[in-house]
């Protein structure tokens, strides 16, 4: 398969190089050695009309010779690139030429021989079975290829279609291998193959045991394959099968199911089900009666059974099987699950190996969940921290906060349409989004919120009005369809720890961004004049005012700061979700929850709230992975209950600062 990716010119060059080498080192016998064409002519029919049965003859003939280019020929053969000339039965490669004609190339030298119409030669088309055979034969050689990349590719081919035939080839290759990474991979593949296919128990058990502790999906798939079971029954407890579990009727297997299995095997008559009884009755209506029961009475199961019994006695329907009949029939048999693998030693070892990985897998899964939760928490933190500061300082709920997030995201989108480089546009978009949202926040504070400080509930409603107006404006300007905000290439991948845990780079970046803003905010609040004044106004606006701080100015700046961070959060969210006019609304309720749970006006409170909500949501999703909606439902319920016990949030302001 891989060979087809190689440009034909390179292939020809290799062929030519091989030829030159042959000529140089074996100058004398070159004439004597039969070229590939001659070898092929000895099995002409099998090559020209490939069948799965005859492929090995060709392979044997080819591999028995040292003819150069035989591997190239095998690849070309499998890829349907070999042509046969009907006149003399010779084989050629071919190259497309103008007006549907083909240029025939000699398979030994690669020289142009002839130019023919595409009707004059026959393309050889091996079927899928033949191609598999060829590929398997090729793998042996590719495993010894000097190029490590080729060897890796060959290993992947083996892993995709495991086959016991490949064990010796792998062993031989392993002996020659000097790349430790590839050697380890080979060793594992050998183990996987041996565990599944080796003939003797001891080797297989050893191989299975060597897989214990291996958490890769590949190893676990092999182990699970070894542990596949089928459900069966027998008159006595079977001795010669590899028994997995015995089933108790009524417990592990339902009575009707058990009986149906017996009936399917032909041991007992099938039980006429509800529909079968109804259809039988329908088929036997005679003059408005069935078995002496008037039709209009047949609307209960009891009446139907009575009628059916009557028909049964007349011998016109198969007998009704009652509960007692089924119990009697089933009690004569033992129902069990048996492993498809007949060797109990192997299945025991496989079970033990799987059990040994269980703890490690749970630990890794836990790590994965933790990473997910951290990433979710950092998004919530970015989205909510602005809300928390404004709420803390001004006791004002800003329902339009989500729209500032949206504004930031759209700013990112617009910048990206103007600047083609994704990296540069991201660098420009982050501060610009902050600026745009800052300006919007400050103007909203000046125009609306300032006038409503004494009426907090009305601020909530007024900002809601702004929120729906902004949302609709965005819809009018940018349309309703989602706009992409593409991450630069260096953010596009994912960091993989192993088969279980991986995290996309963009989430790591958002985490870093959240961390940066956390530190920045802590610095501003604790180490600057502005922060001092903000804290003073948060704790007691009246007293702060009397100390010469202008609460008006502080309110404006805090509101701008909070909104600006929302704008940055918008860019971050837009990078992994899509930018729509409703994206803010999707985060606003979660942001409120984060603030309420964390406690208002505290950076660490918001951090704790975001952490708790993120962890909770991911934790619930872990128990019920299929249902994100359920996770959100339970999370909201939890928050409602949480407020019962800590109405002021995790980090509550104490003393006089608590206000009300």
């Amino acid at each position, binding site marked *: 398969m891989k060979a087809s990716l190689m440009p034909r010119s390179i292939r020809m060059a290799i062929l030519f190089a091989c030829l030159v080498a042959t000529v140089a080192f074996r100058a004398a016998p070159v004439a004597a050695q039969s070229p590939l064409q001659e070898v092929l002519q000895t099995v002409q029919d099998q090559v020209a009309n490939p069948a799965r049965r005859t492929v090995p003859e060709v392979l044997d003939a080819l591999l028995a010779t040292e003819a150069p280019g035989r591997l190239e020929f095998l690849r070309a053969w499998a890829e349907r690139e070999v042509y046969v000339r009907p006149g003399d039965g010779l084989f050629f490669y071919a190259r497309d030429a103008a007006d549907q004609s083909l240029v025939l190339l000699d398979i030994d030298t690669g020289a142009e021989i002839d130019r023919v119409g595409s009707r004059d030669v026959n393309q050889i088309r091996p079927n899928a079975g033949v191609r598999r055979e060829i590929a398997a034969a090729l793998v042996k050689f590719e495993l010894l290829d000097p190029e490590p990349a080729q060897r890796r590719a060959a290993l992947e081919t083996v892993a995709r279609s495991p086959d016991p035939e490949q064990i010796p080839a792998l062993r031989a290759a392993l002996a020659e291998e000097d790349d430790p990474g590839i050697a380890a991979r080979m060793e594992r593949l050998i183990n996987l193959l041996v565990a599944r296919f080796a003939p003797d128990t001891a080797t297989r058990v050893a191989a299975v045991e060597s897989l214990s502790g291996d958490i890769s999906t590949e190893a676990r798939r092999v182990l699970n394959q070894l542990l596949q079971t089928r459900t069966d029954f027998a008159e006595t407890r079977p001795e010669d099968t590899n028994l997995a579990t015995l089933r108790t009727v009524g417990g592990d297997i339902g009575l009707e199911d058990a009986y149906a299995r017996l009936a399917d095997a032909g041991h007992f008559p099938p039980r006429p089900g509800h529909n079968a009884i109804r259809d039988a009755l329908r088929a036997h209506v005679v003059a408005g009666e069935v078995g002496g029961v008037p039709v209009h009475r047949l609307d209960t199961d009891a009446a139907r059974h009575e009628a059916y019994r009557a028909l049964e006695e007349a011998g016109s329907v198969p007998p009704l099987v009652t509960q007692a009949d089924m119990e009697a029939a089933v009690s004569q048999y033992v129902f069990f699950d048996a492993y498809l693998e007949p060797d109990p030693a192997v299945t025991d070892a496989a079970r033990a190996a799987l059990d040994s990985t269980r703890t490690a897998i749970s630990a890794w899964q836990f790590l994965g969940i933790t990473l997910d939760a951290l990433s979710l928490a950092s998004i919530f933190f970015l989205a909510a921290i602005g809300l928390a500061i404004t709420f803390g300082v001004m006791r004002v709920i800003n329902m339009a906060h989500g729209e500032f997030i949206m504004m930031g995201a759209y700013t990112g989108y617009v910048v990206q349409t103007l600047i083609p480089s994704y990296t540069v546009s991201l660098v420009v978009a982050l501060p610009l989004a902050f600026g745009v949202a800052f300006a919007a926040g400050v103007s909203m504070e000046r125009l*609306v919120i300032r006038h409503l400080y004494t009426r907090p509930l009305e601020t*909530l*409603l007024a900002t*809601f009005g*702004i929120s729906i107006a902004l949302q609709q404006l965005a819809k009018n300007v940018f349309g309703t369809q989602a706009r992409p905000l593409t991450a630069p290439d260096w953010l596009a991948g994912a960091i993989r720890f192993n088969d279980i845990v991986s995290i996309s780079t963009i989430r790591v970046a958002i985490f870093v961004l959240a961390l940066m803003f956390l530190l920045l905010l802590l610095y501003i609040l604790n180490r600057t004049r502005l922060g001092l004044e903000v804290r003073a106004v948060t704790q007691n606006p009246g007293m702060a005012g009397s100390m010469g701080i202008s609460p008006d100015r502080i309110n404006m700046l805090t509101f701008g700061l909070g909104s600006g961070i929302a704008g940055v959060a918008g860019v971050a969210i837009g990078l992994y979700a899509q930018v729509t006019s409703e994206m803010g609304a999707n985060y606003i309720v979660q942001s409120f929850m984060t603030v309420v749970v964390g406690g208002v006006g505290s950076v660490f409170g918001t951090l704790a709230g975001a952490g708790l909500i993120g962890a909770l949501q991911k934790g619930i999703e872990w128990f019920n992975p299929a249902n994100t909606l359920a996770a959100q439902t339970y999370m909201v319920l939890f928050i409602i209950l949480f407020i019962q016990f800590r109405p002021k949030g995790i980090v509550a302001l104490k003393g006089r600062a608590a206000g009300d």
Partner: protein
Amino acid sequence: MTMQLSEDPQAVAPAPRRTFLYENPSVLWFMACLGLFTLIVSVLSEGMGTGLISTSLVKILGMTLCLCLIAIAMDVVWGYCGILSLGHFAFFGIGGYAIGMWLMYARTEIVVRGNLAAGTIPPTEAEVAEAVAAQIFGVVGSSELPLIWTFAGSLPFQLAMVVLVPGLLALVFGWLAFRSRVTGVYLSILTQAMTLALSLYLFQNDTGLRGNNGLSGLQNIPGALDVPQSVLSVWFFWASAAALGAGYLFFAWVVSGKFGSVIRAIRDNKTRVRFLGYNVEGYKLFVFTLTAVISGIAGALYYPQAGIINPAEIAPIASIYLAVWVAIGGRGRLYGAVIGAVTVSLLSSWLTGGGAPNIDFGFYRIVWTDWWLVLLGLGFVLVTLFFPKGIGGLFDYLVRKKE
């Protein structure tokens, strides 16, 4: 805000005992307007009268009356008691779901029985139930009747649910919230969380209420399947008008007496009321639960006219719109809530339904479907900033003029 209710300081004891209606002249006015409106709509309707008003318009008007009913409930809990609940539409939706279950089940059962009767032998009860379940839940890939549908075939049971489920939910939620003295914006957010949780819950396919498909075909009333929609719509219009009238009267009575004074006092300063020995939390809980029940009834009347209910109806945004109506109409006066609900919801249907002509400036064309929400949002901000009493405040102006 306490306009008609305060005792005239000039009236010295023994003042003559004044009747409820004398003290609340707005009730009489409202009843008269409602009656007149009902009469006009009936006479002009397609089903009963001249046909000047189309069936769909009658339905819209009937639905608007239901919205007025929940708006006055919202007004009582917010305008009078000061609890800004952003979750009352959840109760409205629950009422709709409760009645919708019966409508859907009973109608499907009639259809299914009709189909099965065509067979040669009559169906058993189990077969009917199975076919009904398959019919209703086929869309969510299930054919089992969930437990909550056990009594869906019984109208009295589902009618009881219309009242009991919102009432119980409000009681439990309110008890938890008020007990821990959650107030102000915190309470608003908490109620919003409640309605969000409910809508997310209903969005799931396996909760037994058909996930995001919701319940549909509710406009077909079992037992009246041969009555044309034009007539049914008028019946529902009457029922909605009657419910609104009764609700208005009831709430006017509730807020006019001593009870009304206490809840208004709680709104203005709950600490003082508590010091006076009143059980503030008990009053709040009572008002919250009572208005939730009325909201449920309003929903049960609304959704048979709308014909379909799905979880999106309960999304938090709906409850916020409710607050917007009340705020625009004027809080703390029942007729204000009605005015707000009528104005905003009819204006919304008119502008978004393509009824309003677009304005062409040459360089830009104002398409109302695009700009209505911008207008509403900004208008709402202006009302909040400059007319805190809302449209209803104009009546104060008129009354003062007269005096």
